[in-house]
């Protein structure tokens, strides 16, 4: 019988094998132990003196050095976010005997806000014993108050620090956001050692989105301190103490790396003009360069002072801002959702032309209201009016709802919805600072996804009619309105809106500009369709019955525009909307979207003014002022109309 195939265990052979393995393992164990002991001898015997000196009596402390935060410029090099010196009260936990008592005493001197007591206590405790934690900002008088009582507060100190300063205040708040004190939540998302000396972090907008570019990197220097925390030796200050420096070998101080500066697409001249044009009203305006997607202005009113956040906003002030009925903290431009009203008509007209749903020259009669054949429900002309005989061109120029009711029905909801989605409605535009809402383009499919009950999922023809004039379920953000307007201006070639256009290296001062990106173009409409819609929109601002003729009277450039009215309040079937009867906050929102010059577009704008009545009266004049500011800044002289 051939031996090797047998499966019988050979116990002796196995035991020998196993024993040899155990012995080998034992040898490895001994070798590794020898390695460990050698290492311990090196540490504890050979280098004993050095380590003993490091720990004995003198302790050494690493003092982190904050990097200077990068500046933010507008496209013309104007500083929008700067750094200015400021006095700060700081605490070093390991040197404070009783944190609670110390905070109490500081509160009595009105140097620390009592309402922040527990927040500050937790913040100090969450840091390493030797880290400096900012307690509050001090005015010059407060700094003096503390300076004479300093001896009573071991572990508390004043330091000068750079804080963020926004020279344009309210006007830039929603576009670039702000920095604030690092909260416990922020600590979760950052590399803590890199922020060891930093007290502020981007909380909103550009400041938050580009935190990593702006922040830079922490530096440190080593100090020898005694048991009371007094600095005995600082190698960056006293270079004479060579013998002390010997103990420290190996660790050097490192200068912080300044954050890089960033260049935004904003043009502060346009931004300020928009802020001023909106004035005290609630509203938003976004202006985009359609050729690149550069956001030239991004304004939301009412606004707030970002400097109050940068220097540490008090709890009471924050609560006041947060509970204000006008919601100054809400960025209406990015996250305000409004029905687009008639501003959608050019897009729907374009889709209708593309699908040949209607003969643009055919005249329909507008009696001021519309019934679906066989139904009694009245679909009325927006806020009243009788347009008589209208074709597609005059329906856009005069904003005839009855025409578009019938057009939407003729097209069907899918063509309407797809025509709108092609321009970016219903999805975030991809603005580089995030924080946008997606909006809604309603369709039967959308209803199915968003309503649970079967009876709620049914799509009614009336909903197609409402969508045809931008009412009903449809919601857009002002940013979306501007972005799709820019895409329309460029005949379907869109760019994701962007705020960051370049980064300036803090050291070399060399600016690296990013190339704009391009979206897949809107396919389908023929050149004559684009021309038709542009001409109709130019008609809005120039023809006798155009809805925005009054607001655009005397312009030196050619504007393509469209007014819109977003209804907040639904009037009963047999009633008439009378502005004076309706509560102010239920009045209509006014829209105006435009691009100019109509033949070679360089700016696309969307503006909304809340509760101010129709767009022709409220938003169009705002856009006019911004356009004037833009073309004045550009030195643009148009041929006489």
């Amino acid at each position, binding site marked *: 019988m051939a031996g090797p195939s047998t*499966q019988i*265990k*050979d*116990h002796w052979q*196995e035991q020998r*094998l*196993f*024993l040899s*393995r*155990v012995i080998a*393992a*034992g040898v490895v*164990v*001994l070798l*590794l*132990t020898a*390695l*460990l*002991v050698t*290492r*311990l*001898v090196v*540490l*504890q*015997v050979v*280098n*004993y003196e*050095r*380590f*003993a000196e*490091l*720990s*004995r009596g003198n*302790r050494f402390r*690493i003092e*982190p050095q904050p990097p200077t935060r990068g500046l933010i410029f507008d496209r013309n090099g104007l500083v929008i976010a700067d750094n200015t010196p400021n006095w700060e009260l700081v605490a070093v936990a*390991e040197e404070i005997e009783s944190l609670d008592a110390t905070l109490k005493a500081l509160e009595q001197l009105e140097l620390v806000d009592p309402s922040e007591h527990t927040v500050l206590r937790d913040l100090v405790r969450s840091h390493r*014993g030797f880290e400096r934690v900012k307690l509050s900002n001090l005015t010059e008088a407060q700094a003096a108050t503390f300076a004479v009582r300093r001896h009573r507060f071991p572990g508390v100190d004043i330091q000068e620090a750079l804080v963020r300063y926004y020279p344009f205040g309210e006007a830039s708040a929603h576009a670039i956001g702000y920095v604030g004190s690092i909260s416990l939540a922020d600590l979760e998302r950052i*590399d*803590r*050692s890199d922020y*060891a000396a930093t007290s502020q972090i981007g909380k909103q907008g550009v400041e938050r989105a580009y935190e990593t570019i702006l922040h830079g990197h*922490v530096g*440190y220097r*080593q100090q020898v301190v005694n*048991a009371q925390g007094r600095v005995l030796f600082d190698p960056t200050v006293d270079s004479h103490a060579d013998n002390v420096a010997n103990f420290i070998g*190996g*660790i*050097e101080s490192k200068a912080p790396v300044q954050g890089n500066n960033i260049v935004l697409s904003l043009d502060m001249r346009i931004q300020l003009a928009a802020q001023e044009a909106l004035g005290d009203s609630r509203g938003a305006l976004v202006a985009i360069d359609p050729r690149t997607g550069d956001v030239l202005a991004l304004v939301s009113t009412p606004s707030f002072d970002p400097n109050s956040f940068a220097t540490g906003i008090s709890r009471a002030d924050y609560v006041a801002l947060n509970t204000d009925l006008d919601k100054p903290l809400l960025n209406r431009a990015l996250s305000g959702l409004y029905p687009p009203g008639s501003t959608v008509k050019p897009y729907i007209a374009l889709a209708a032309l593309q699908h040949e749903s209607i003969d643009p020259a055919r005249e329909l009669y507008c009696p001021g209201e519309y019934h679906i054949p066989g139904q009694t429900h009245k679909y009325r002309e927006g806020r009243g009016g009788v347009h008589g005989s209208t074709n597609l061109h005059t329906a856009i120029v005069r904003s005839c709802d009855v025409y578009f009711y019938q057009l939407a029905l003729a097209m069907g909801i899918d063509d309407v919805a797809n025509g709108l989605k092609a321009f970016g409605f219903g999805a975030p535009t991809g603005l580089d600072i995030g924080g946008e809402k997606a909006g809604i383009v309603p369709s039967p499919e959308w209803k199915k996804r968003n309503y649970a009950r079967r009876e709620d999922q049914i799509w009614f023809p009336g909903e197609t009619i409402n969508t045809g004039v931008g009412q009903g379920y449809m919601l857009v953000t002002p940013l979306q309105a501007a972005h799709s307007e820019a895409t329309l201006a460029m005949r379907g070639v869109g760019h994701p809106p962007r705020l960051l256009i370049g980064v300036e290296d803090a050291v070399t001062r060399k600016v690296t500009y990013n190339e704009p990106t391009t979206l897949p173009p809107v396919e389908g409409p023929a050149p004559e369709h684009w021309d038709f819609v542009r001409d109709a929109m130019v008609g809005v601002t120039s023809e006798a019955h155009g809805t925005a003729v009054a607001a655009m009277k005397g312009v030196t450039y050619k504007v393509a525009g469209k007014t819109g009215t977003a209804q907040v309040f639904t009037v009963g079937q047999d009633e008439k909307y009378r502005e004076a009867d309706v509560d102010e906050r239920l009045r209509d929102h006014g829209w105006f979207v435009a691009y100019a010059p109509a033949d070679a577009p360089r700016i696309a704008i969307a503006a909304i003014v809340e509760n101010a009545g129709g767009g022709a009266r409220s938003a169009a004049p705002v856009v006019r002022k911004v356009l004037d500011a833009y073309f004045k800044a550009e030195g643009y002289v148009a041929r006489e109309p």
Partner: protein
Amino acid sequence: MSLASLEWGSVGGGRRRLPFSGLVIDVPLLALLLMIVGLGFVVLYSALGADAGLLMRQGLRFAAGLVAFFVLSQVPPRYLRIFTPWVFFAGLGLLLVVMVEGEIAKGGQRWLDLGFVRFQPSEIMKLAAPMMVAWFMHDRRLPPTFLQTIVMVLIVLVPAGLIAQQPDLGTALLVIAAGGLTILVAGLSIRIMLTVGVLGLCALPLVWMFMHDYQRNRIFTFLNPESDPLGTGYNTIQAEIALGSGGMFGKGWLNGTQAHLEFLPERSTDFIFAVMGEEFGLLGLLLLIVLYLALVGRGLWIAAEAQDTFTRLLAGALSLTFFFYVFVNAGMVSGLLPIVGVPLPLVSAGGTSMVTLMAGFGMLASIHGHRKLMAP
């Protein structure tokens, strides 16, 4: 006299049994464990800031460990072997439960809450994985064939993978170490070992790609602790200062400035080796190391004397895994190895690993105490 009846083993294989009860008690093992834990308590008391209450809690954990030790000492290895697959697959099931619960809680999940006690199922695997490997080889010829090796590797990697995605890379590595050492003592051929070693080295760049940033940082910092004195390098620097300033004889009990002035992080858990080095010096550490070596030696002795494949492999693997813990922790604290969250066995504060370790030693005691006396 009754003490005399506690027989000390001779090479021929004495049995340590109390004559009046038939209980298995491995006296050398127990004595070494008590010495190490006793020494650990002394250091821990200092590391905990002379807080007797906290030390008491560690005492309770050790008491729980002792119970596990004694109970498992009495279970004949035959039953250990029979129960092995049950324990292994139950452990796997619990890991899956924890994973699913973690998914629901949208976050890493390691703990299983039974209401009265919380424990980490991954801890079971530290014992169940080597047991399962030993179980698998029990009826098979040593050395293992290539196919058998693949199966054993899977037995180790499946639970390790589940643990790694918790994510608890430290424990996953320990499970791999325990299972891997079992495979090694099973007589894996040198050629395969070398092949795997070379493949492993080649795979390192791949591992690097899959590592989290914080894990890469640890490696960087290990290579050059001074590069990040504010972050992870801080721990290494402070631990080295603590060890180095302890010198030959140490600063004395409760006198470690690094530990007591809170310069040393994690002093009662992962870095307790540094506290001991600071207060008791090189001599203190050598005493601890000698005790550890004796314990490992006793374990290997038990493995050498074991009478069947299962017990042999299990005893060998348990002993070597124990040494692995010691070396990884001491190596990390003294700067030989990068920082990984492995406690110093039997000394660091913390409950779960104490019970697991003592259970492992209980099995060792059982393996030795239940040998058959007749010659093969």
